[in-house]
Each structure stands twice: as C-alpha cells, then as structure tokens.
C-alpha cells in the first residue's frame, strides 16, 4: 500500500513523515519519530499509558489514527521537561514517590497536565476524575493524588 504523508507539531517541533494509512499515532510516535514516552499498555483505550495531548485535549494515542492528526499540535511526556529541569508535575511525582515501575507515569503526567492547565487548584475529586482513565498497578493512586494536590497548593501560593 502506498504510504501517505502526515505533518504535525510534536513537542514544539515540526514533524513530517510518510506513514501507512491506518497506523495509530502511538505506533507512529514510537516507531517512526523516536518518542517512546507514550506506552502501549492495552491498545484498547483502557489503561491510559499512551495518553498524549492533541490540540489541548487529552487523547489516547493507541486509538487515534496518525493521519487524523494532520496539522495538529501534539504534546507528550517526553517533551515536557525543560532540558534537565523537570516540569512541576514531574517533579511532584518524583518527590512524592508517586511512581514505581514507571510504565503508567508518562500517560499519567499528561492527564494531570490537562487538568492543571484548565484548573490550577483542583479539588481531590477533580484529581480522581482526571486520572480515572489511567491505570496504575503499583502505587494505589494515593501518592499520585497527593502529588497533584501538592502542585495545586504551590500554584495557589504563587497566585497569591
């Protein structure tokens, strides 16, 4: 089958690639663009490990065909840190022992980013809802919830 061109912005960089029609964004990011931060945990839209942000919306890259992202702006956990300086969400997860095996962490970080971008000081209920599509089998979620709330507290202090 003929390959088709696709272009989008990935973590601030223009990307262009020829892909197979029907390829998922997850596979294109990982196999063709060298960004392995989104993980394939279920390929069913159930675990959230492949979560990325497309045009500001949280999306599952395993269910998204890459060619439907033409012209889109895509953010992944791989592009969140500023050089060696972690994003505040990433730093909070590190500080709060909120990651163990690490497989869910990149997707979890993106789900949290969408939440905090929209609502810098969310309630605990908001946090639970925001990460409800992201499965973590190690932590029991509580350290993750606490890490998000710690970012939220520091956001509200900065606002004051």
């Amino acid at each position, binding site marked *: *089958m003929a390959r088709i061109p696709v272009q989008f912005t990935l973590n601030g960089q223009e990307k262009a690639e020829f892909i*197979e*029609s*029907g*390829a*998922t964004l997850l596979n294109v990011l990982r196999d063709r663009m060298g960004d392995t931060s989104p993980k394939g945990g279920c*390929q*069913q*839209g159930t675990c*959230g490990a492949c*979560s990325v942000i497309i045009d500001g*919306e*949280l*999306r*599952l890259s*395993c*269910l*998204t*065909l890459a*060619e*439907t992202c033409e012209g889109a702006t895509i953010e992944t956990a791989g592009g969140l840190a500023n050089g060696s300086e972690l994003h505040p969400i990433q730093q909070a997860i590190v500080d709060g022992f909120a990651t163990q095996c690490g497989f869910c962490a990149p997707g979890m970080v993106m*789900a949290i980013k*969408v939440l905090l971008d929209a609502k810098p000081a969310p309630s605990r209920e908001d946090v*639970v*809802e*925001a*990460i*409800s*599509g*992201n499965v973590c089998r190690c932590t029991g979620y509580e350290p993750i919830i606490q890490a998000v709330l710690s970012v939220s507290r520091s956001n509200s202090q900065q606002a004051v």
Partner: protein
Amino acid sequence: MALELQTFSSSAEASAALRGGGKSYLGGGSLVVRAVNEGDVRITGYVRSTDKALTSIATDGGRARLGASVTMAQVVGCEALSELAPAAKLIGGPAVRNVATVGGNLFARSPFGDFTVALLALGATVHFTDGEMDIDAFLAARETVTDERGIVVAVSFDIPPSGRFRFLKISRVKPKGVAVLTIAAAIGTDAKGTISEARIALGCMSDRPIRAEAAEKALVGSELSESGIAGAVDVIGEGTAPITDPIASSWYRAEVLPVHFRRLMLD
C-alpha cells in the same frame, strides 16, 4: 495488510464507501480501532466523514439533535443537555470521552453502550443519511440497517424536563468502570403524583440495550413509593438475558437488577 482510512466530505459518500461490507465507520475509534488492535480481522478498512453537521448539537423548542460524531465530552459540556450529562460523564475516562461518539455508542455491544441506554429511555429517533427510525426499531436491526439507510448522522429526542429522567450505572471501579448494569428511566407523573408514563431501558441485560416493558406497564397508574413500585420491581427482570463477562456473571446481574432498580426509583 494495513487498514486504509478513506475520508469523505459527505455522509452520503461515506455511506456508499461502506456498502459491500468489511469496512467500518471510524468515529472516535474507541470501539473500532480497539477491535482492530486486538486482532479483529473482520474489519478490513476505515471510512469516515468530515461533514460538519455530524459534530454539531442543535437544541430547538425542547427538542435536541445530536450529530453522530458529537462526543461524550461535548454532551457533558452542553448546558441544554444537563439532564443527560451524568450519563455521558460515566462513560470512560476523560480521554475516552474526548473521542467516544453518540453514534458509536449506538453500536456498542454490552457491557458498553451506556449512553444508548439513556437514549432508549428517552425514546430517541435515529437519523440516517437516508431516513430515520425510532431507537427501538434501530436497536433490533442495527447490524444491517445502515446497509439500506446509510450511516447514522444524528439522534434526536425531547429534552426531558428536570426530574423526569433518571440514570444509574453500577460499576465495580469508581469513578470510571465498565458497567455491571445500567438503568435509565423516563417517568412522567400527573398532578397527584400518579405515574402516567414510563420508559425504562436496561444495559447489560442482553447483548444490547433493551426495554423493561413489563416493569413499565406495572408502574403506570402507581405512585413512586415503596409499595407503588413493588410490582415493577418484581418484573424488572422479565425478558432479560444478562451477559456474563469478566465484570459479572449473568446470575449476579440478574440478582442485583431489582435492587438497583428499586433504589433508582425511590432516590
């Protein structure tokens, strides 16, 4: 071999491309791409339409029309549909709600299809490229109906006045979990509080959403009280054949259905 995506600007063209079988309409991908990823080789290609009408919500004179590509997130965010927001919000996590569509939900097999349970209770109309039908008839014929009528382009229904519509989804995991069962009910009462009309829809009680007609009949003429609904509680399971899956057995679903139905009615 790779699955090609064909994109058309009109629903009619997309419908034509789907005729002949094998290809599947791509909405948000939460059902179709999932099936392909898991190795469903019956799907041989994707077709979609970029017709703007498919993604729009129109509310006019108490009637709502939701394009088939309207997402659960759009329903949650639409003020005029606030009665339905709780149902849409219980579907998937945020990322799934950003892509899962009203049209796709109509075709979901149990234990999925919670929003369709709500639409069935509301007595919605399903609109195709060519014509329309009521949701009861659609659900009975959904495997083949699009061959004749073309793709689903929208659903429409009367927006229920506050308090008329009730919805309950039971999951083992909260806030997001696959349904053990889903119940939606549209209950109309007269000035004295007597039930004048009732439509009850059940999820996970068959391979697709079904009506609980015996319970509907038992409710009409009664009051929304413990004794008033007792007859309906007794027959809520009539005609059901609950699914067995990793979430729950058929036996378990049958056992808890009357319990949850009673709670939904009395809450």
